[in-house]
């Protein structure tokens, strides 16, 4: 019940993001999500593609340092406080969230939250026991 995400290391200089998006775009890869964590010297591009495996192969062959990470995905109603309720559960159990982002697909009235946590197995158990609906890759 986990969502696969690709992460790519990128130097913080002009032209790098273009190279990545162009490499994927010309092979017909469609992004579902994309975000960038940036520091002074480098960035990490994290994304989910419609076809993650193909995207991974393309980037590997193009020489990128790319890896696959499994995230916990949660679907919540698109309304105030929905995110806070999920985060509250994690906090009560003293679980650390390393990063998190969310997105809303058009024609849906739900929001999707993706997060990387320190202990994925424990977090899955906790959220399932609280009746939270977890996303699988297919649901995206």
């Amino acid at each position, binding site marked *: 019940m986990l969502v696969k995400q690709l*992460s*790519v*290391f*990128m130097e913080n200089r002009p032209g*790098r993001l273009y190279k990545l998006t162009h490499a994927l775009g010309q092979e017909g890869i469609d992004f579902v999500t994309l975000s960038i964590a940036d520091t002074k010297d*480098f960035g*990490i591009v994290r994304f989910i593609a419609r076809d993650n495996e193909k995207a991974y192969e393309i980037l590997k062959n193009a*020489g*990128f340092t790319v890896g696959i990470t499994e995230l916990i995905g949660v679907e919540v109603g698109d309304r105030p406080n929905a995110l806070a309720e999920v985060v509250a559960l994690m906090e009560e159990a003293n679980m650390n969230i390393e990063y998190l982002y969310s997105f809303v697909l058009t024609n849906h009235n739900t929001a999707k939250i993706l997060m990387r946590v320190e202990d994925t197995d424990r977090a899955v158990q906790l959220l399932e026991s609280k009746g939270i609906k977890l996303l699988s890759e297919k649901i995206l």
Partner: protein
Amino acid sequence: MKGKLKDYIYRPEYECLSRSEMENLQSERLKKTVKYVYENCKPYRAKMDEFKIKPSDIKSVSDLCKLPFTVKHDLRAAYPFGFYSAPSSEIVEVHASSGTTGKLTVVGYTQNDIDVWAEVAARSLAMAGVTKDSLVHVAYGYGLFTGGLGAHYGAQKIGASTVPASAGNTIRQLTLLRDFGATHLCCTPSYAIFLGTEIQKAGMDIKDFNLMGGAFGAEPWTYPMREELERLLNIDALDIYGLSEISGPGVAMECMQKNGSHVQEDHFIPEIIDPETLEPLPFGSEGELVFTTITKTGQPLIRYRTRDLCTLTGGKCACGRTTVKMSKVKGRSDDMLIIRGVNVFPSQIEAAIMNVSGVSPHYMIYVDRINNLDVMEIDIELAGNMTPDRVSDIESIKKKVETEVNSYIGLSAKIKLCESGSIQRSEGKAVRVIDRRDK
């Protein structure tokens, strides 16, 4: 103040000999040294036997070229004390400098060797006008590195007040220099320039200083750097040369003519060789500097290849000395870098990097001089097979590289992680270092 110091000859009976007098003295001392190392130093006996040379074959300095060379690797192979000619009980001090693979190059000194070192350092400081009335501030590091203690011994031999400030803590250095009224400063030229630029920032005025000169070395420096240093500190700045294997600072030193450094030839015979063919070259040709120590007893070295490239010139100098002069060091015949006075080999950096998982062996070292200080940046590729998802994972790889490099070379370097494949692959001999400092 610039122009105030008086260069004087500390030991005219040795520094002003005629060529034939010097060669006679060198020949006597060389014969004695060759016999001594043959009888007391196993690696030398083996080497000379291999070359089928007996001490009796060496009758004068003109026979020097018959002897085999000594290289840093020989010293390392005998690590730590295998190159001693004297028994360990006679060794009173040990110094060491970095070697190519993290193993140190060790030098043992007998009391005689310390006296020789103090003597040549004193002659050197006399060229910078140090007398017993001077106050010499030594801001070279004290320790295994010979800079600090070498300047210290020389200043004390003259009888000057010696302030062993050692390296670091710039504000304290400036305060001591000003408040103690130092007349002379000894440190690396880049640090001296740095001190000069910090005076104003520290809210001080150069007019309140009593400095007139200094001996600056342990790293190559240019004539424009001298002008800058002299202007900032309002002093006469002279170049001091040395290497621990031969003795330490004072092997050669510039006089006030400022056009080359006098080699203390009655202790160290200089030669210039072609680093490819190893043939001796005549005066005036550029090549690799080679030294033979002829008065040391702890660890004398025969035809030691310094890897420093320069030229030698003979003849009487306007200062009155007749000793051979060496030009500024123009480069190296190996890939050693001198960064902030510290000897660094790219192979040490490579060895350090190999200890860290998450990076590839593809790297490039950039050396720059920024605000007169040497700065080293190492660009290194992240390993292609790691999962680069957490910022903290990547930063900890960077931190590990920093720590490893620092522990291998004793210097901090800025580490930049690069995408895999981004560092240029060279065809043939790998280019690992780009030194962008002025030569």
